[in-house]
């Protein structure tokens, strides 16, 4: 066992040494956007005959289906992100309609709750960024409370720099990552 491990290690070591000089191609950027463009090809191998699946029982809606305003792409409530300038926690004018719409939704629906998740770009201390992200989330919350939402309806948390939306190391990526996201209960 030891011998196998040792030789495996030596091989990996040689591989590591050999590849040392060709590592400058840059890290592969994960890009998942095109995934939905092409439908996955049918499986190449035939699947074994399946047993008859039990029927799926669904209750029939008696009321006419109302589109969920929070999910309706045509509704401003489907917009969930507020973006910030560098080193700023101020809600910019262009995002005030979004914040107002959610504040009104909370005012009209006292039973609903949301979490606002603050985020920062990658530069600087992780813990200090966590606090800055918190302040961005709080900034959005404060505006919603001025517009009628209650403290109990909104929890603010921070992801700091830990959950970037864009992985790049330049301003175009950073501007995507300086944001607060709105997530409703049950989502």
């Amino acid at each position, binding site marked *: 066992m*030891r011998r196998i*491990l*040792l030789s*495996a*290690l*030596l091989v*990996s*070591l040689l591989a*590591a*040494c050999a590849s040392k000089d060709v*590592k*400058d191609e*840059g*890290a592969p950027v994960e890009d998942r956007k095109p995934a939905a463009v092409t439908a996955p090809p049918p499986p190449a191998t035939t699947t074994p005959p399946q047993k008859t699946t039990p029927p799926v029982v669904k209750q029939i809606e008696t009321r006419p289906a109302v589109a969920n305003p929070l999910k309706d792409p045509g509704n401003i409530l489907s917009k969930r992100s507020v973006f910030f300038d560098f080193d700023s926690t101020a809600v910019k004018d262009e995002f005030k309609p979004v914040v107002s719409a959610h504040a009104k939704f909370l005012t009209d629906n006292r039973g609903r709750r949301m*979490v606002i*998740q603050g985020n920062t770009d990658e*530069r*600087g*201390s*992780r*813990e*200090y960024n*966590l*606090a*800055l992200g*918190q*302040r961005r989330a*709080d900034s959005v919350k404060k505006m919603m409370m001025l517009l009628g939402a209650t403290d109990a309806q909104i*929890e*603010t*948390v*921070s*992801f*700091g720099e*830990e*959950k970037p939306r864009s992985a790049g*190391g330049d301003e175009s990526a950073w501007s995507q990552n300086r944001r607060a996201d709105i997530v409703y209960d049950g989502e």
Partner: protein
Amino acid sequence: MISIAFRRSRALRPTCPIASAAAIRAPGRQRFVWTFIVLFAALWLAFASRLGWAALTIEIIGGGERQIPVAIAPLAGEAGLEQRISEIVAADLARSGLFRMIDPGGITPMPVEPGEVRYGDWSARGAEALVIGAVTPAANGRFELRFRLMDVLKQSQLAGFSYSISNAQVRNTAHRIADIIYEKLLGVPGAFATRITYVVKQGTRFELQVADADGHGAQTVVASNEPIISPAWSPEGNRIAYVSFEQRKPIVYVQTLSSGQRRVLANFRGSNSSPAWSPDGRRLAVVLTRDGNSQIYSIDAEGGGISRLSNSASIDTEPNFSPDGQSILFTSDRGGSPQIYRMPASGGAVERLTFDGTYNVSPRYSPDGKSFVYVQRNGGRFSLILQELGTRQVIPLTEGAMDESPSFAPNGRMVMYASIQRGRGILAAVSNDGRIKQRLTVQAGDVREPAWGPMQKGF
């Protein structure tokens, strides 16, 4: 689940001598450009994880201005061990940058007892100190190990110890021997027989790992598909507090290493983060937003007993206890930009400690409490600075672009930190005078958030 394999150190063979350092002083600045780079590539560790092979490598850049020349004779009978003690000891000492290893090759017979040492052989090679010893098999598969540290110039013994060890204790014993040699020759304890923790990110997977200070024996403490940050060792080194985002918000956990058991330390409304142990291990400072803005609180290590320590309308975060438990350093932007402040450990009057620049964060006390290291942003670059508390004098330690998360070795001589190299997260260490630098990299993935554990007590 994790298999570990070692490759024996060959770095100290005559084909790869540790060159002596020649420093060039940059005008007007306390920084040094080193004229050589020693690749210290022989310490490899690999473990099979579900994402493939990962290995921690240590590389040394720079060295002390004066390196003590030491010869480590192969110990008689050490070939019977799984690993050679003399090679591990030599690797430790060389890695510190404070010693120059003298090749013992060609001296016959190799001395084992003090009476067998022909001092002229060793002084002719420039050695000032010599390590000799032997390993003999004992009952129950154990070994008896004897070593002596000899002063070549005075022709006398500086230290001598014997140990009864198993094969599993070889590395740790070798690190302890290196610690003794370090202390006898430099007057300060070594920190080779210590452990580090850090976070490895591979793809979307995060693992909090613990390894020996030389990168060997890495083990995963906790793995998650959500980020893990801010690991902090308990003073006894048996528990680690950390922040995990697995519940879609930052929550502070404390995990016992031996059992793997963990519990929630702080999960209040809002964010919970930045755990720091008090030196007696009874409580932790944490940062909570349950009352609004990010503020520092004290919480019992067993949970409960919560009290607020800082009181501002600003961000107060990154608490760090002084070694005597009397004070807490922290980061606050109460003055308009993030700066380092100090307050009594029970809260109260606050004193600002940094004034240079507009971004000074992540303070960490040195183990003697006389200085602290922090991160300064300067023109978009983040680097480490040391401030002497007595004189307020500052010493730049690094000049990296993205250096963060500093953590002192328990002997205060090195500071480990996270950095970026070619777009990847790596760990690095720098001596407390900025002269010696090391890099630790894993073969795959990003490494970040290092924390250097305390001195180990007993076996």
